[in-house]
């Protein structure tokens, strides 16, 4: 609708000024998809990290915990129902996160086809600079990680082993542990910038909150990454066997 320049305009609400829907999805809406799917994934990561620490409680407890995940909701719902709901939600979140990222990455490439001869960055951090390729590393890692510890097909113990055996067998190998360490550090950096960026994207930041949000993002990324790193490294040095 065109603005009315002719008459004194009275206050109207947006509903009265509704205009036709256009197919183009705005870049900001894609960012919101990225932020919300990221939050879902982060919530899952917290539970995942806490669960991993049960490796210290021994084989029986850890395998029992793994069994329990498959039985959540029983007997109200059939076995594995909740597990599959979680898996579907995670898959949708990962796909949405990656779709938004790839789409915005391509938009950014189109927005500057010719690069500067000289360019000097002063505000960007290592975390913000590596968001995209770090995300690619994480996507590849997730595939390997599922083949390794969930399905067991890429694990030295094979698929007909207990979760505890698979974890110990895998992390006893320094090369496998090295892959996990690299991926988890990439995750840490991804979270460091991701948490701040999601807060901005969802419109929850301002000048006074900015410092707190960034400090929280750093602390959260460090704690979560450390929590994930402790069990594999403990297996490697023989604390867990």
């Amino acid at each position, binding site marked *: 609708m065109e603005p009315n320049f002719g008459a004194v305009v009275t206050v*109207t609400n947006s509903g009265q000024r509704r205009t*036709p829907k256009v197919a183009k999805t705005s870049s900001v809406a894609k960012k919101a998809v990225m932020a919300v799917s990221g939050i879902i994934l982060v919530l899952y990561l917290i539970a995942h990290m806490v669960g991993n620490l049960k490796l210290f409680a021994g084989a029986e407890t850890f395998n029992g915990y793994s069994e329990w995940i498959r039985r959540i909701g029983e007997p109200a719902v059939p076995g594995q129902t909740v597990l599959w709901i979680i898996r579907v939600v995670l898959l949708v979140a990962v796909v949405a996160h990656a779709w938004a990222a790839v789409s915005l990455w391509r938009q950014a490439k189109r927005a500057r086809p010719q690069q500067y001869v000289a*360019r000097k960055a002063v505000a960007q951090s290592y975390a913000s600079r590596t968001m995209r390729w770090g995300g690619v590393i994480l996507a590849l890692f997730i595939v390997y990680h599922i083949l390794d510890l969930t399905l067991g097909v890429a694990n030295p113990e094979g698929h007909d082993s207990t979760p505890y055996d698979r974890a110990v067998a895998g992390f006893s190998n320094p090369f496998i542990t090295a892959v996990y360490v690299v991926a988890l550090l990439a995750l840490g950096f991804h979270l460091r910038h991701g948490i701040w960026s999601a807060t901005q994207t969802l419109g929850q930041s301002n000048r006074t909150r900015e410092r707190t949000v960034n400090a929280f993002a750093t602390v959260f990324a460090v704690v979560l990454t450390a929590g994930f790193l402790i069990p594999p490294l403990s297996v490697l040095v023989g604390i867990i066997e």
Partner: protein
Amino acid sequence: MNLKLRVWRQRSAAEKGKMVTYEVTDVSPDMSFLEMLDVLNEQLILNGEDPVSFDHDCREGICGSCGVMINGRAHGNGLFDSHPQTATCQLHMRSFKDGDTIDVEPWRATAFPLIKDLAVDRSALDRIIQAGGYISAPTGTAPEAHSILVAKKDSDAAFDAATCIGCGACVAACPNASSMLFTSSKVVHLGLMPQGQPERNDRVVNMIHQQDLEGFGGCTNIGECSVSCPKGISMENISRLNHDLLGALRAGARPKS
């Protein structure tokens, strides 16, 4: 001061450009960066060469016409700790050292097509403003200023956003060539005022829609824009814009086609 300049020369958008090296001698430290370019151009004209094209107008740091990448930074902001953030015209040669080599390039973005040398067409920013950067108000006698009260913190934040001069440095500095800092400052400076409320939802939706149509990139909250901005406009405006946009989409506002 004697300087070595490496300047982007490109006769038109259709032709290929390249960095060309020039020696500029006897530069006074009191000259502004643009005056130094004037000296270079006088030299080029005397030699029968084509002078370097660049945009400029007020040369007081308030109009937003000038703007080039200096050593990889928009307006040179972020290169010198001692120097306040400003436009190219208010950057003085005393910030440089005798014998320095300075790279000078135009803003690079699909949405800013190159006209010649260092001059680019920034009308994309005007079209973003046309899409929603206005209020509907009767013209005529100015109303009594106290008839509509505005909270001090809102008027301060709106004024900070309104200091945007639309130079395009944020786009030039952004790794994604996004104009979010520009668009957000326009959205916020009207959106915080009572007079800006009638179009608040449509404004943000239409301006973002136009921004995407122009071929700008998306924001990844890196912050190069804010440290390159001659007015130091804060990233909090981007957060406010996002808040407005998500609220507007929920309320059913859609971009006009």
